[in-house]
């Protein structure tokens, strides 16, 4: 029998609600993004308020698009962690309410693991190295010894945050699109006018780990020294993305895996995808860059991961649905992957 699940995600600046069935069909997948004022960063409480104001609207929209009523839902899935506490609480409260009202099972899903699982579904992958790049995370995640383990990550700020802060310092207007996209546009502008002159910036790779804070400081300084801002954007992108590609490459080489997936908000950047694609080719690996709706924070990944967990026999009491701000992927028992894991051992 086909199951229908709702997935609610609100771990950071985005609220996502999706309806997905157990055949892996996404029947609805909507996202609404909280926008701090121009020049400001995300304030968790304000973001949470935005999510709370919109969650019922988005749930109703999803049900309507999927052409079902809430009574047709078999599973209620929500992001339990990791993420910003006040934001997570919104998806958790909404899910608890639905679960109690409809008397349907509730499932708390790990955000990072869900990113990888939706990537495997959409990209038809078995065992990828996942580069997860967003405003809140920069991690290389892969299956090892029965868990999704973080092979490498940023030692200070995430890449998305690096691009955001740089853009804010430059007073870029990001009211229409994410800051990362604005920085990419400037970099492309530099290319078009022949300003793709590379300025050396700190390039920091330590094993599988990376660091962006020195790069950010130096890029801001470079722009303030009078170098045209589009040239700085070009150099910043080239440097930051080369670092990310290199740690992904290190993980491919170290594990010998043959699939590469990029997910998270920054995965929308076409320059980054191009670099990863070319790198994967050197290693004879299959590369998948996801379409934006399933690459960014979204409800579909939560619903899909919830379905996988439910089908593998996971059950959860409503008392065990407290949010977990610092829930790391390696803490998640991958019961739905038991066969794959046993095959590997």
């Amino acid at each position, binding site marked *: 029998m086909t199951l229908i699940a709702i997935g609610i995600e609100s771990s950071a600046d985005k609220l996502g609600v999706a309806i997905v069935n157990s055949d892996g069909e996404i029947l609805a997948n909507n996202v609404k993004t909280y926008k701090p004022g121009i020049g400001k960063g995300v304030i968790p409480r304000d973001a949470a308020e935005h999510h709370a104001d919109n969650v019922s609207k988005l749930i109703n929209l999803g049900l309507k698009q999927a052409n079902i009523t809430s009574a047709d839902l078999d599973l209620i899935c929500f992001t339990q962690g990791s993420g910003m506490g006040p934001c997570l609480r919104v998806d958790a409260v909404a899910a608890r309410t639905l679960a109690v009202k409809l008397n349907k099972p509730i499932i708390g899903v790990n955000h990072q693991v869900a990113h990888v699982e939706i990537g495997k579904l959409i990209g038809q992958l078995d065992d990828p190295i996942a580069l997860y790049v967003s405003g809140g995370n920069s991690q290389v995640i892969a299956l090892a010894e029965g868990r999704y*383990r*973080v092979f490498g990550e940023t030692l200070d700020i995430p890449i998305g945050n690096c691009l955001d802060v740089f853009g804010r310092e430059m007073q870029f207007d990001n009211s229409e699109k994410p800051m990362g996209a604005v920085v990419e546009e400037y970099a492309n502008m530099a290319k078009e006018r022949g300003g793709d002159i590379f300025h050396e910036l700190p390039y920091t790779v*330590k094993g*599988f780990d990376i660091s962006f804070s020195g790069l950010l400081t130096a890029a801001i300084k470079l722009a303030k020294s009078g170098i045209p801002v589009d040239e700085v954007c070009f150099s910043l992108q080239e440097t930051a993305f080369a670092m990310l590609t290199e740690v992904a490459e290190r993980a491919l080489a170290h594990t010998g895996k043959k699939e590469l997936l990029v997910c998270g908000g920054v995965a929308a950047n076409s320059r980054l995808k191009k670099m990863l694609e070319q790198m994967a080719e050197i290693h004879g690996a299959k590369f998948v860059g996801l379409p934006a709706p399933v690459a960014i924070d979204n409800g579909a990944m939560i619903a899909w991961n919830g379905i996988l967990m439910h089908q593998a026999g996971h059950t959860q009491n409503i008392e065990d649905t407290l949010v977990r701000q610092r829930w790391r992927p390696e803490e998640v028992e991958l019961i739905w992957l038991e066969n794959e894991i046993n095959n590997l051992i």
Partner: protein
Amino acid sequence: MNKLPCLDIEYGDTIALGAEARTYYATFLGYDVVVKHRFAKKYRAEAIDNLLRKNRSIQEVRLLHLARKIGVRVPFVLDIDKIAWKIIQERILGVPLKDRMNNVEVNFNKVGEYMALLHENNIIHGDLTTSNILLDEEDNIWFIDFGLGYISTQIEDKAVDILVLKHTLTSSHNALLDIAFNAFIKGYSINKEHKSIIKRMEKVEERIRYT
């Protein structure tokens, strides 16, 4: 048969297509050597690629030399090709530690002792993974792949150097994490600054988890 501009090398099989380089077996004057070729990577801007290949090759040779001088087992460098960026080095008859995770306590204790020595001499390895530590037939520990290394007196740099090893153990050898890392720490404690370095490492770990 390929010829280098510097050495008359006879090429053998590729050992590894690593993250940075292609590594070959070869012979020179009848000696077994390894050629590490940092070939051009088209995926990144040429300027970055040239800089990285140059800096890392030079740094690697420099640090291999320094490490050898203080008595740490590292391959001897015969030559460097500064056009193609190839390093020709002594071939170690050993296997990467990641493929020989038995006798973990003894081996990681030794790794810790040598790392203490490297750090006391302000040599940061920069890529301390179990792919870059070799174990020979007499159970000697050899360090290779210093391309991400550098010289630093900073506690933070030494702390992060060790954290890289811990991360590799966590991700790739999780079942042996505690026993391997504790043995490492034990060996490392011959470093006069070990307490503040390990404390800093724990701080960095916390910082990563809490951002």
